């Protein structure tokens, strides 16, 4: 990524306007008349709502730090951190209704937290203990998808199903349903993501394509994926786009609320680009010092989304030390729970690998299961 002297995006090559921003990095509310409609969207949020977002962001970060530590200790096979993307994830997820449906990629720990997916279950995949880890029906959150971009099409199809079920444009807020798919800047290069735009567009499906442009796809900067701004990606397909400051939790909430309402009311799909930054490594296997500058990381550290919301709460006199200490204690407890419960997750029994290959039993699978079971019991008896 090309950066200027401060480590920030180089203005000559990366025009980040327009950018929906409701809270500036220093924590003050912006007054841009162009974004008045988005300000309307957050007008009803009470201090308690902002504090709830803050809490969710802090817990998401603790989940991240704790999981990274567990991987270092050999308790997880791999972990993909979301550090720096908490505002994009928590803000957008706060705008969801319970009946809305989420198709995540693999870094959306903040979204899953807000939806209520259990934190231990979220780590089963990363522990190499389960390929999924939770019941998608329980919180309307599909499983993580590791094959970049494929789930965007599933989301488009799911949205088409919602539409066929007559759950779009009824005017009943408890029934109208939207579908969201989360993916990264790198994923926009995949054919599947373009095809998702095509299918969502021609069907006018109730879909929000939420792209977290965290500037990097492993070692490749966004400039290796696209020459134009990502938020305009949908235009040619007939899908309007908007770019939001992904480190501004209120702006992410507002833009998402807007896109969701459009989807639920029958207005069709929206492409959202949340302009943010992957503050950590791609995964615990990655070493970003090989491909990016320290100055860039420092620039973004000064734009930490959690600090920004804290600054807003402070400047509006809504910061309360006792409450902040409670959040900290809650984060501590989450860490403690992860440390104990993740370690306690055993391994599934060997023959579990044959479970659910098909919905109905078949001799081919049954024979192999029986063979392996017998083979392993012979082994433990020391037959050979």
């Amino acid at each position, binding site marked *: 990524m090309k950066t200027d002297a401060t480590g920030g995006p180089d203005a000559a090559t990366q025009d980040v306007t327009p950018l929906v921003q409701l809270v500036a990095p220093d924590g003050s509310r912006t007054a841009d008349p162009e974004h008045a409609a988005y300000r309307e969207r957050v007008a009803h949020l009470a201090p308690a709502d902002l504090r709830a977002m803050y809490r969710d962001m802090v817990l998401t970060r603790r989940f991240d730090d704790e999981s990274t530590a567990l991987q270092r200790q050999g308790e997880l096979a791999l972990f993909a951190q979301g550090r720096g993307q908490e505002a994009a994830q928590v803000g957008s997820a706060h705008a969801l209704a319970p009946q809305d449906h989420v198709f995540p990629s693999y870094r959306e720990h903040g979204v899953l937290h807000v939806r209520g997916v259990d934190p231990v279950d979220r780590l089963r995949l990363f522990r190499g203990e389960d390929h999924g880890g939770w019941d998608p029906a329980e919180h309307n959150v599909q499983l993580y998808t590791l094959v970049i971009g494929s789930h965007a099409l599933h989301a488009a199809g799911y949205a088409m199903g919602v539409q066929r079920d007559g759950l779009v444009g009824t005017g009943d807020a408890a029934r109208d349903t939207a579908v969201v798919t989360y993916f990264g800047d790198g994923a926009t290069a995949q054919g*599947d993501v373009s095809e998702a735009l095509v299918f969502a567009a021609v069907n006018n499906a109730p879909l929000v394509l939420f792209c977290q442009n965290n500037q990097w796809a492993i070692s490749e900067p966004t400039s290796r994926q696209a020459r134009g701004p990502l938020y305009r990606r949908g235009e040619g397909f007939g899908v309007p786009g908007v770019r939001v400051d992904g480190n501004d939790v209120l702006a992410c909430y507002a833009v998402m609320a807007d896109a969701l309402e459009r989807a639920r009311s029958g207005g069709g799909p929206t492409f959202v680009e949340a302009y943010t930054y992957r503050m950590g490594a791609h995964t615990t296997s*990655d070493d970003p010092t*090989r491909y990016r500058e320290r100055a860039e990381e420092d620039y973004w550290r000064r734009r930490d989304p959690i600090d920004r919301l804290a600054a807003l709460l402070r400047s509006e006199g809504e910061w309360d030390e006792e409450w902040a200490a409670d959040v900290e204690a809650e984060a501590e407890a989450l860490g403690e729970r992860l440390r104990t419960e993740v370690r306690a997750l055993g391994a599934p029994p060997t023959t579990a690998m044959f479970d659910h*290959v098909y919905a109905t039993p078949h001799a081919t699978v049954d024979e192999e299961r029986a063979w392996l079971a017998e083979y392993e019991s012979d082994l433990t008896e020391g037959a050979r």
Partner: protein
Amino acid sequence: MSTATEQTTEQTTAQSERTTRTLTFAKAITEGLRASLESDDHVMVMGEDVGRLGGVFRVTDGLQKDFGEARVVDTPLAESGIVGSAIGLALRGYRPVCEIQFDGFVFPAFDQITTQLAKMHYRSRGRLQVPVVIRIPYGGGIGAVEHHSESPEALFAHTAGLRVVTPSTPQDAYDMIRAAVASPDPVVFFEPKGRYWSKGEVDLAAAPAEGILDRARVARAGTDVTLVAYGPTVATALKAADELAAEGTSAEVVDLRAVSPIDFPTVVDSVRRTGRCVVVHEAPVFHGVGGEVAARVTEEAFYSLQAPVLRVGGFHAPYPVAKLEHDYLPSVERVLDAVDRSLAY
């Protein structure tokens, strides 16, 4: 006084001694790619993260620095795009070597590989050549998450027109990648990622053996049973052969090198001598390469066989979670178990 010929021989020996180095499997491929990039300026390396990062397994480490961004290219994150554009580059006279980051991520490119790449030479009646190499780290045992441990070689082997090959030693890795780049045919080059960090002596000066992509290799000679393996399971078969030797059974190990097309004469010749055959691969046994080997051996060496050809490999289930992968993968013990059954038949 030595003759001129003797002097030359002496010099070559001295040179090749200097050029023999201990390399990891991964570095042997790096060096093979380097040699190919040096010898033909139409060779390119392209893929996700292959440039500055040097690939997630560092196989292309240093190549962009040495050959520039035009020849070692960080592509957009799109496998169909990587292979499809490589076909176009090849039609224009380039020799692209594409890296697919992991086995499970080749499938967005499956259409380009099977409907286009494999058939271009055939449908143009030989007028077009598409010398594209597709490198794919494959196989399990590294404790990874889903889609990072699979062995999809049979899916490609079933498509005529592709050469599907996989080295098992650093020397073969170095020789075979150079042969793959030089091949006029498209080559799907499977790299056993679990072996990337294993080390071996590599002679960097020797030209690759003529027809190395066509010929299987007898990795160990033996008389009682033939173990047919390739890629990651050659090491497993060799370990099994060691244990069998200690028990008084002499196992021959044949390393296929190419799983499509297959060098059947080398396999059949071995089984004619040993009378027994066990095929070992990580991929599921069901509809796997072992089935083809077993059928051909049965057809061509029926009267030499003392036991049915047995297969050891993965199960008819998706690649399991990392916690269970060592029960899924063919272990030395499972090879020995199969050999016991063959001997007891």
